[in-house]
């Protein structure tokens, strides 16, 4: 099989981003690097563990056209952003939940969770969110994934503090832009599938967002409740992984730069604030 763009992924990156099974659903666009092929691949996949920005920076310096980072941890990516911009390299982040197409979609013509939440947040009375992950998950890493999903849809979060963090999860509190309280809880359990649940309550209803893990193409659900009743946004049977790759395809094809790293800087800044408390 050969695609328009060759892809190279280390075993760690393969595992972190479920690369083989995801690219199997984009066979006309991406394909593996042929053995012995000279020069860098078109796309390098980087596992998003600590130090991923340095690895991505090396890839940019080596001349790849695109970098896909699988599930990155919060890390200062300022230098990477500058280098990618100068080299014209597209760096796309494949985030566990935040990259789900139901949260921030590809078209301004189609409503997504961000539209729903941001149009309601002005009258919010409470934002309550719960992230669920398997026992033994690093709660700090889970919190980063959780906050990434929240920031994708809510906009700024103020006064964020970690109230507790332990082997069963965490509780975080803060304020929305209008001063209403927001809470984010991490729960470590194998009883239920992993995912994140975001509930925004407003004066006459609210928005409920349920995002599954990207290990399958189960759709997220976005429900908007108001005086009109309840509206379920169209379901998208596409995983966060695949949607990240499709965005990379679009940027490579159009030679444009994604704003993933700029968005990620907001998470890194918030995370640094939390780490200091």
């Amino acid at each position: 099989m050969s695609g328009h763009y060759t892809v190279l992924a280390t075993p760690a990156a393969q595992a972190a981003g479920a690369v083989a099974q995801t690219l199997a659903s984009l066979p006309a666009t991406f394909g593996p690097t042929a053995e012995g092929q000279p020069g860098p691949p078109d796309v390098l996949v980087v596992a998003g563990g600590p130090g991923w920005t340095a690895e991505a920076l090396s890839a940019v310096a080596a001349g790849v056209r695109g970098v896909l980072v699988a599930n990155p941890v919060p890390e200062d990516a300022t230098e990477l952003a500058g280098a990618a911009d100068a080299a014209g390299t597209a760096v796309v982040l494949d985030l566990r939940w935040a990259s789900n197409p139901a949260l921030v979609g590809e078209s301004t013509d189609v409503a997504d969770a961000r539209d729903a939440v941001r149009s309601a947040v002005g009258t919010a009375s409470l934002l309550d969110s719960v992230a669920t992950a398997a026992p033994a998950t690093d709660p700090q890493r889970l919190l980063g994934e959780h906050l990434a999903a929240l920031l994708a849809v809510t906009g700024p979060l103020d006064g964020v503090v970690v109230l507790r963090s332990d082997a069963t999860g965490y509780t975080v509190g803060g304020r929305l832009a209008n001063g209403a309280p927001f809470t984010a809880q991490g729960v470590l359990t194998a009883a239920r599938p992993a995912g994140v649940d975001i509930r925004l309550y407003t004066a006459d209803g609210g928005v409920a967002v349920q995002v599954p893990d990207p290990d399958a193409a189960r759709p997220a659900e976005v429900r908007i409740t108001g005086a009109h009743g309840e509206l379920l946004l169209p379901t998208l049977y596409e995983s966060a992984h695949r949607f990240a790759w499709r965005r990379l395809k679009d940027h490579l094809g159009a030679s444009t730069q994604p704003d993933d790293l700029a968005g990620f800087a907001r998470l890194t800044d918030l995370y640094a604030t939390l780490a200091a408390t």
Partner: protein
Amino acid sequence: MSHHAAPADRPLGVGILGAGPVTQAIHLPALARLQDILEVRHIMDVDPAVASSVAARVGARSSTSMDALLGDQDVDIVAICSPHQFHADQVIAACRAGKKAVLCEKPFAMNGEEAARISAVSTETGVPIVVGAMHTFDPGWLAAERNWGDLPEYVHTIRSSIVLPPNARFEDFATEIVTRPAAGRPDYSDVEVIKSALRGGIMGLAIHDLPLVRRFTPDFQQIEVLQARHVRPFGYAVSLRTPTRVIELRAVMNGTWKPEWTFEAIADDSALRIDFTPSYVQAGSAVATFFRHGSETSTFGPYGHNGYEGEWRELAELARGTRPAPSAQSLIDDLTFALAIADATVASAAAGHASAAEKAGVSA
């Protein structure tokens, strides 16, 4: 005192102290479904027009004094649906009047001293007391209890989330209310208003589920508040922990039409979720769902009646002596747990308000 068993072919007589919306929209419709075992015979309210109007709906006598109702020999079971501050004295008076059973709307006392007095009188008179924590009588909860095995030992996280429209929405589905109390316009810039709202939220709303929370919290006497936030217009976001449990309480009463009332108890490998039906309407029982190992679920319910009807069924059995009385200590523990949370929540909110005002340099 008279503890004679009522004739099996005659319904037990019910007298109700306080004829406000809870009596009109919750208890009378629930009792209307149980006419073969219970009959409303006396309604008391300090407002004579309300007392007579509500009593007339069910063909009962009316009065404006507690003594008249307690002296009514046709009343076997007394339900106390008056304002909170009257509960303790009225429970004690009903026990001393030799009634067969007493239902007291939650909370049954406002402090530990009142609770101890009630316990002593209940023990002395032998009159069983039921507190109107309706979810503990819900068939969905009772099915969960029968099937949860050792889950309470291993739970580490407990969540109660209550999203409701204003009471009037469901009251109006349940009945035609007379003399609904006027709603105020609270001044949220006043910390005393916030403190009062939070105490009201815990003792008036969270208290429905705190007995459920306590069942999964063996070290409930060591509660610590991590955060207490008031949610406008009415609600709370309270995070608690004990040495072994995390407890998250959320409530929002807004203008929504969509009620969501859930209780969750979560362990490493299994979890319980209960979806309760809203109060006031006869919408059947809660549904209890067990989750195990990520992909196995088992569900119990819905059953045909809710917790309010469940508590009246239990009261009838208690009054007939066909069921043992509930543990007074358990009721006291439930109350002291709720009071401890309410006190700590209010203290935490007051401290947070003072801190925020100091940071802002204003009296917010």
